[in-house]
């Protein structure tokens, strides 16, 4: 009743509410939250960056993610914060069933992300593209990636394929807690693409915890280690190489064929996998052509 008597005040309040609600909605009205760093990269790569309003705690690429709201990650998604952002689509991990259920109850659309192998990357790009209305850009991106991968395969096709162990995680400065790629998964596929034989090709798991016994039994000729870029330096590399000298009986250690790459993109199954394949191929076979 008070509002009826003061129509101008009512109008001003309504306008304020509308402005607040719409202030941050991008042009085409989509508000996307991505809990998966790989998916975030995909969204930005297909031009949906402006529609992304929320990212995970661990997103670092592209640089624009710094300006987006952080909403947690795999084990600790901040449900309240997600709701506050009023998303029109939330990209989650396939295993986050709890979160999916809650979002479903709030009627928020969900894109469930599961990646296993390398082909899933381009498949997911296409699916995401369809979901956010950027099919053309998605197809273009996917094709470019596929072409790049094919190119890498072609370049290494005639070269010898060393028995390689791809280590993606290890205790700092020690040979404990070594995790390597198993015979399935995008890391394995990348390794094979880059022209190597996976020493754990017969183990049908994505990750293998490598005991010292397995290390000696499998006897890799090359050890390829992927490290995060944070904290990496020449001193760290020396330290990590020294750690391997504890087991000089391993052929890769004896022949000093331990390759270390430090870059966050190496373990992200996102749009930059083509670059990753190239980087691995360069490391394995020398920078060439």
């Amino acid at each position, binding site marked *: 009743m008070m509002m009826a008597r003061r129509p101008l005040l009512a109008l001003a309040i309504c306008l304020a509410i509308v402005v607040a609600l719409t202030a941050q909605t991008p042009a085409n009205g989509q508000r996307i939250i991505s809990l998966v760093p790989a998916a975030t990269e995909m969204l930005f790569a297909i031009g949906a960056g402006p529609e992304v309003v929320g990212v995970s705690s661990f997103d670092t690429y592209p640089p624009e993610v710094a300006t987006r709201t952080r909403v947690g990650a795999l084990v600790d998604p901040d449900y309240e914060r997600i709701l506050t952002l009023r998303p029109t689509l939330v990209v989650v991990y396939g295993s986050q069933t709890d979160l999916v259920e809650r979002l479903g109850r709030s009627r928020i659309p969900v894109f469930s992300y599961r990646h296993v192998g390398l082909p899933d990357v381009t498949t997911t790009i296409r699916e995401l593209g369809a979901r956010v209305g950027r099919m053309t850009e998605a197809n273009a991106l996917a094709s470019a990636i596929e072409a790049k991968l094919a190119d890498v395969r072609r370049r290494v096709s005639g070269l010898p394929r060393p028995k390689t162990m791809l280590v993606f995680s290890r205790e*700092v400065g020690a040979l404990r*807690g070594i995790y390597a790629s198993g015979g399935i998964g995008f890391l394995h596929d990348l390794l094979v693409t880059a022209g190597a034989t996976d020493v754990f090709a017969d183990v049908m798991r994505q990750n293998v915890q490598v005991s010292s016994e397995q290390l000696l039994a499998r006897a890799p000729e090359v050890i390829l280690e992927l490290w995060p870029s944070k904290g990496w330096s020449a001193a760290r590399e020396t330290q990590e190489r020294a750690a391997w000298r504890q087991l000089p009986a391993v052929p890769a250690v004896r022949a000093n064929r331990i390759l270390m790459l430090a870059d966050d993109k190496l373990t992200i199954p996102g749009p930059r996998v083509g670059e990753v394949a190239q980087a691995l191929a360069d490391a394995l076979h020398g920078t060439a052509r």
Partner: protein
Amino acid sequence: MTDALRPETHPSQPRPHGPSPPHLLRAPLTRGLPIVALSFVALVASVGLAPFVGSTSLSFTRVFATHVPFGDNVDAQIFLLARLPRAVAAALVGASLASAGVVFQSLLQNPLATPYTLGISAGASLGAMLAITFGAAFPLAGVAAASLVGAFLAVLVVYALARARQHGLSTTVLLLSGVTLNAFFSALILFVQYLSDFTSTYRALRWLMGDLDVAGYAPILAALPFLIVAFAAFIWLARPLNLLSLGADAAGTRGLDVHRTQRVAFFSASIATGAAVSIGGPIGFIGIIVPHLVRLMVGADHRLVLPVSAFLGGAFLVTCDTVGRTVFAPLELPVGIITALVGGPFFLWMLLKRR
């Protein structure tokens, strides 16, 4: 002074007179020596046999074939570089945790005390968590060293807290300090895990389950000085700990330097525990199962309980580790899970058993 107070001798109690029965004159200690020898043999046997078992099938003739250069002899490499150090590590860790358990139970006058009761493993775990989570950014010394530092920090804090009120080490105050430290450090550990990324969290959880795959002798050698000091102290502590079981006052009136004994016991057992945890992580149940079983076998004399617990603790852990790495080969079950699977039913049995 009336004779009315002299009671009639009860018919079932013969009035003692004359020389004592001969069996009384054999020292109780010597009766336990065969068990000490047997348990030592068990330890040596377990360490010697464990490398022959594993997920990879080895040709043992090839392992010991001296004509094949070591660099080409994968079988020998696996036996000597992967399995044997692991068995030795398990033996040392098991021996340390079991004997530290005995000492802590004596110090705290409680058979339910464990090497972790006073917060040492919480300190070690915090050190390890910090190294695992932030190790890449601050690569100081590695997880093992960090856990050792964390353990010693916890020891000093508990000691300072326990000493704050009085000169000696009251068991009640020690216990309370330990419980406080456990709670506080556990909260810090959760906080660190909250800050860490998924990989670090997973790695940290995995560390907590125990891992004896030392990949060479270096981690063992690094911890060895601490273990030697601790074991030497245990040898000295054996008889004083017997006296301590009568109570601090009663031990003191029999000529024991109670404060010194408590200090030596506290620090040596803490050092042993810290070193053991730095090698293999906080493996549970050994520090309580083994001492309990050993006391059932040999009685309460620490001069028997300590060595037998050490030997059998080592043999037990070697066995658990061997089971863990073979039963689901090539997958490895963390050794802490095996000891927990044995420990749970053990506690149930203890609970149900009537004294």
